[in-house]
């Protein structure tokens, strides 16, 4: 870190922001100096993205002050912030797919003659900027949709530079890049830093933080818990700062009686997502699967749901090869699925609790195509009681239940058809603590009754304290398998952020 009276580019003080019952930011502070690369790290839900959205003028804080280049900015809005020279490289590359490179770089700041765009000048300037900063030739006439992910990132950064950015905020910029692209991005960022630009770098990848950042602000539970220099503070110490230890005993004790393998995946691969994945889940076992955004973990689960198709590899269910071409086929094979976006895929909001529960197993309650209302109703009443779904009754619309109870309905749907394998995608996201505990208890019971459970999760505590075994995916490959004493959140975070490769394997 170079000292000598650095100007403060961004100073956020005492920021509070509340969403409903959640205190997303709790007296958070962030100070960024000019000419530095400043890392922002924290677990999911720590408040990183909220504080960045406050700076971007997207979320309005409840209290607190923001200064940009020493000037207090009162009413933050995207255009005001941009006028102060703060530019954002969003994670989801916000570019118009049908625009050319030249157009994308200069959109809303087009070089003009009267009302007319000076198209040739615009293209020439765009190409020159890209050449200067990235040392590559990119035809300014190519459409954005035909660029690779890395090239689109380049266009986004060039766009900010074309507008004389003084603060550049990059949110997970490397998630979809390969190593050499990451390297060239880093050398550009270092160069920008040396030119005096303040760079805010948000990443889950601790290696990158270590390699790139001059200073790191660690966030936890909506507040900044420390500002450290990665040169002096080892990565595992930074990770320790990120993890929240004081959580009550919320996980039910597990008594595992592991039986024969139920779900076996061999050589699973999908171009650009994941490679050579082998995993198995046994009877009575709860296996966690985790990985950062873009690691490929999500895609593995999507393939098991039949939402995507793998290019290679086989899936065996109870030693029989199966083909999962569609979600329909997955259901026919007896795989119970709990998608992450339960509003879109997990439950039908407009139907009643009863209808949702019997949806996946209508066969059982129908005769000659007609529903046998009596048996359906009594089964549903049993489920409501067993799962302690908080609903006035079976006829209540699922829309009117809380998130946790909607999730329980989604699980009940599969209980009613006695599945052997449960594949869950973030089962406890956006669910309150009480409902979480109930979901854990329920999964626990399913496992003890012999179900094999595979759950994708990014909640480190849930993975380390609830699952029997956790598999970690990093950049498309299984890099770690943790169980027993080796299974703790530090190891998981380290493995999924690439700081540690394949240690603590206990078979």
């Amino acid at each position, binding site marked *: 870190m170079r000292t000598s009276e650095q100007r403060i580019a961004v100073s956020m003080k005492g920021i509070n922001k509340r969403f409903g019952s959640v205190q997303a930011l709790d007296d958070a502070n962030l100070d960024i100096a000019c000419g530095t690369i400043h890392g922002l790290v924290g677990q999911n839900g720590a408040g990183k993205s909220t504080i960045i959205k406050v700076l971007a003028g997207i979320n309005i804080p409840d209290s607190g002050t923001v200064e940009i280049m020493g000037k207090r900015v009162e009413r933050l809005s*995207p*255009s005001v912030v*941009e006028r102060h020279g703060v530019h*954002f490289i*969003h994670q989801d590359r*916000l*570019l*118009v*797919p*049908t*625009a050319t490179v030249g*157009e994308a770089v200069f*959109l*809303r700041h*087009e070089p*003009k003659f009267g*009302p*007319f*765009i000076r*198209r040739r000048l615009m293209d020439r300037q765009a190409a020159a900027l890209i050449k200067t900063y990235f*040392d*590559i*030739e*990119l*035809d300014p006439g*190519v*459409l954005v*949709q*035909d660029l*690779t*992910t*890395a*090239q689109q990132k380049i266009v986004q950064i060039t766009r900010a530079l074309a507008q004389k950015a003084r603060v550049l905020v990059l949110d997970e910029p490397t998630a979809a890049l*390969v*190593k*050499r*692209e990451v*390297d*060239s991005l880093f050398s550009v960022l270092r160069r920008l830093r040396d030119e005096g630009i303040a760079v805010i770098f948000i990443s889950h990848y601790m290696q990158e933080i270590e390699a790139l950042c001059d200073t790191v602000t660690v966030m936890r539970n909506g507040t900044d818990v420390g500002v450290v220099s990665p040169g002096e503070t080892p990565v595992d110490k930074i990770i320790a700062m990120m993890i929240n230890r004081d959580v009550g005993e919320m996980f039910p004790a597990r008594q595992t009686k592991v039986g024969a393998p139920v779900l076996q995946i061999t050589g699973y691969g999908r*171009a*650009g997502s994941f490679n050579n994945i082998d995993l198995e889940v046994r009877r009575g076992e709860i296996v966690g699967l985790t990985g950062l955004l873009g690691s490929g973990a999500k895609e593995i689960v*999507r393939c098991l749901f039949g*939402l*995507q*198709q793998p290019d290679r590899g086989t899936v065996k269910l109870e030693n029989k090869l199966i083909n999962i071409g569609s979600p329909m086929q997955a259901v026919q094979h007896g795989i119970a699925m709990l998608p992450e976006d339960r509003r879109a895929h997990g439950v039908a909001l407009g139907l009643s609790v009863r209808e949702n529960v019997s949806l996946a197993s209508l066969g059982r309650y129908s005769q000659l195509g007609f529903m046998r209302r009596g048996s359906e109703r009594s089964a549903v009443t049993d489920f409501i009681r067993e799962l302690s779904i908080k609903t006035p009754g079976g006829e209540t619309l699922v829309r009117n239940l809380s998130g946790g109870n909607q999730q329980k309905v989604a699980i009940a749907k599969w209980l009613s058809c006695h599945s052997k394998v449960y594949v869950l995608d973030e089962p406890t996201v956006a669910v309150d603590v009480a409902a979480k505990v109930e979901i854990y208890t329920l999964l626990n019971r399913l496992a003890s009754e012999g179900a094999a459970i595979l759950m994708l999760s990014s909640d480190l505590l849930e993975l380390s304290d609830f699952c029997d075994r956790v598999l970690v995916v990093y950049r*498309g490959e299984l890099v770690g398998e943790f169980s027993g004493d080796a299974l703790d959140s530090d190891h998981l975070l380290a493995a999924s952020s690439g700081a540690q490769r394949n240690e603590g394997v206990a078979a």
Partner: protein
Amino acid sequence: MTTVHSTYSQDEAALEAAPPRVTRRKAIGALAIRLGAVAAFAAILIYLAIAAPGFTLPGNLINIVEQSAILGVMAFGMSMVIIGGGSNVTEGGIDLSIAANMGVCAAVYAKLLMLGYSDAPALGATLMVGIAIGALNAYAVVGLGILPLLATLAVMNIAAGIELTVTQNTVLSVSSRFLDFLSTSSAFGISALAGSLILASIIMIALVHFTSFGLRLYAVGGHPEAARAAGISASRYVMFTYMFSGLCAAISSVLMVSRLSSSTPGSGEMLLSVLAAALLGTVFSRRFVPTIGGTLLSVLFIGCLANGFQLLNVSSYWVNGVQGALILLVVATTSFARKPESGQ
């Protein structure tokens, strides 16, 4: 295809190998569609030139351009709406009320002239009515958040109702000095009607393809969030397109009244042609978005088709069928070509 010329080692390029191949295949597919469309146009025109008696006579060709002026101005309005709303067929921009709006404007214009108003106030009122109906669309789509397909369908019915109320479903024959000027005057062998199409095309090309307004409008249609992130007020642009489309309906209603010397019921039937022209035009763009040049070509093509069918003594009802088939074909091929090949 462009590639990154990087000085970095190529060893980890494996993960990256997939996208360029996919995009190249897509680009070739897009090119094939464009060339195929041009070839099909050319083939049909050549067939008409050979088979339809008198098709290539200068008088007939000028006739086609004149007939196309009314359709063309409306198709420009429709193109504008599709550019700003995006070419997604189900949720994107579309103005189904444009032909019915033209009918209302024609009725209002003819009625005012019949009531003895002079050209200027009648014209002004007509344009205001067109823009007002466009504003109703804009409010329904942007203000109320109704899908354009549904919102403009509803407005179409409102407009059709107004037209019937004004005209009592009769032909309102009118004449005025301005109408005489439009229907009889000509310069350099180009009639006023054909001239209006040329003038409208030039203005539209300048506005849509050469100003920053046009670029921003395309951005709004291409990816509204990205446009908003760039500081563009997407909803204002979308509202503008519907009002502009209403203005186009009003202008073409004046051309219509001058050509027929009356307002006649049934102008709502032009909707299919307008839609076909605007959608057909998208195949001429490598981005599969409407362009003014593409729309103009399609308008002339549809004009040729209608004219050729007449000369061939084919029932004009067939033209409707052909236009409907063209819409299906264009929407199917462009959405197929646009579809990303990966699962996400």
